[in-house]
């Protein structure tokens, strides 16, 4: 195990976040806070409770998850794409680090940033709405699991992308719509039966539902199904990363 190698990648990636605090930290916190103000405080005050929870509090897990997905993907994809773009990837590929260590370094740093941001947004939300966390360990578990899964997904996108457009297209065109339609702002039980069934094909539903359960003990789908689906996504992403390093896809000609 090249411990120093993993640490070096991890520290370099974390340093990148600190170097760009305004963009990496302030921007997601501010934009998520705006959601709280607009949806939670302004619209929420005119809405009834959802699943026995005030609307302002109801949307907190969904909004954190929305931010978490976007940040995990963008941190991890940029983390690996930029060295590819600038050519500095040569050093990582020629170093005595295993594929697993490379992934732990990059994905670990991206997931850490996302989890920290998630917690920061959670604290910020307290300024606007009051909420409770019934299962804090599960909440942290879902936060970390989702951050790792989507950081792995971001890593795959970063390796696959050969231009900035490709880098942005999946988060913008797929992940954000899925997150918006995955019950961030509503319970899927509020939808007509047909659309409820359609929504169950949206993987983000399981992430948000599970995360919301850890807050309020109520969920659209069973917590076990949510956990199972999250682990399935994690396995798919791990398999993709394994395949990338096995074949050298877009990393080693």
């Amino acid at each position, binding site marked *: 195990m090249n411990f*120093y190698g993993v640490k*070096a*990648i991890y*520290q370099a990636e974390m340093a990148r976040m600190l170097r760009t605090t305004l963009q990496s930290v302030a921007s997601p916190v501010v934009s998520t806070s705006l959601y709280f103000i607009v949806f939670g405080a302004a619209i929420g005050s005119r809405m009834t409770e959802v699943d026995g929870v005030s609307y302002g509090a109801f949307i907190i897990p969904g909004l954190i998850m929305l931010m978490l997905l976007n940040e995990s993907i963008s941190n991890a994809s940029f983390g690996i794409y930029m060295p590819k773009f600038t050519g500095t990837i*040569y050093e990582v590929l*020629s*170093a005595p680090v295993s594929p697993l260590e490379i992934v732990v370094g990059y994905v670990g740093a991206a997931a850490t940033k996302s989890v920290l941001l998630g917690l920061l947004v959670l604290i910020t939300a307290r300024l606007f709405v009051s909420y409770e966390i019934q299962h804090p360990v599960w909440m942290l578990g879902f936060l970390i699991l989702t951050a790792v899964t989507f950081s792995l997904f971001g890593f795959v996108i970063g390796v696959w992308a050969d231009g900035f457009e490709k880098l942005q297209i999946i988060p913008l065109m797929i992940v954000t719509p899925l997150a918006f339609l995955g019950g961030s702002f509503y319970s899927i039980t509020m939808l007509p039966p047909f659309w409820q069934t359609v929504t169950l094909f949206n993987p983000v539903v399981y992430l948000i539902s599970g995360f919301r359960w850890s807050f309020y003990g109520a969920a659209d789908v069973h917590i076990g199904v949510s956990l199972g689906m999250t682990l399935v996504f994690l396995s798919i992403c791990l398999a993709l990363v394994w395949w990338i390093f096995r074949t050298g896809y877009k990393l080693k000609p």
Partner: protein
Amino acid sequence: MAARGRVDIGEIPIYGVVLTLHCAGLNQLMVRRMLCLNRLRRSGLVAAATSPACEGSVDNIIQVNQLTKSYDSGFQALKGVNLSIRRGEIFALLGPNGAGKTTLISIVCGLVNASSGTVLVDGHDNVRDYRKARSKIGLVPQELTNNMFDSVWSTLKLSRGLFGKPPNDGLLEQILRELSLWDKRNDRIMNLSGGMKRRVLIAKALSHEPDVLFLDEPTAGVDVELRRDMWDMVRRLQQRGVTIILTTHYIEEAEEMADRIGVISEGEIILIEEKDKLMQQLGTKQLAIQLHSALEQLPESLRADALKLTPDGYSLIYTFDAQSEQTGIAELLKKLDLAGIEVKDLHSSQSSLEDIFVGLVHKRRDEQRLGESQ
């Protein structure tokens, strides 16, 4: 047995002859003797100096065996390359653009997957035992590939860590001081000059104390003074026991620094030789004879392939084999005297490595064309 098209030491005299034959006019007996010797070597009756049996006794830090690389496009970048790098030497790899230099280095360093063949770095297979193999190598790439937003100091720390070495700020300071970068340690790389950026790349490669340093065109785009500084630094590294492999377009660089020279062309190593021997064996000399008055044409008695009259008629250029005991100069001067041609000045010069290199590559292309047409 040497790969197709590769030249071993045994063949060098033949190339020397071929290169100089048409201009130097060496005697036919010598050519026949060399060809005969070469045939014997090929048949195994006389061992070639670079045969595996002979190289096995040398302490090789890098051993490349039958390395091939074909890209998805179908382009075959390497065609069965065999190469041994001796511990502690400076080895210059020369070759025209697209010859396969960077592909070869990239495979050894683990940046490109080989199609077939093996690479051993200090006895460690660079695929199966990649950790041990890679930890011994430092690579200075051709392009200025630095993370522009990093500081010099943090990028060095990253490099050392990546190669699994514990922090050693004292060593990093020493490297930066030696490369005149210590004052810039806290500067962002984007604010440095091109020469400094290249030195940062060298510092990064040295930060993990490699036994082998690959310098892929280290002085491309570098001014003369900095180039000299880099050469000095490379020599200092060699004195400390670091093996250096450099690719370069500047023949002058290879001539100045290398202990041995390899020439790669179209994915094949066509020559590996000690630099001094190469210069000696392949070197031709030219004698420029300035005349008092211009000649319209060479007198009949002086007509020979080795002697040319310059277009202005004021100079004669005589090409001869520097190693031959019979250079023919004395005879030529006598003939000039007899022909009543008055000599004003004489100036001799030796062929450079560049002449040799260009000659070899052209010869190989001619051979291939001939082969194809047959």
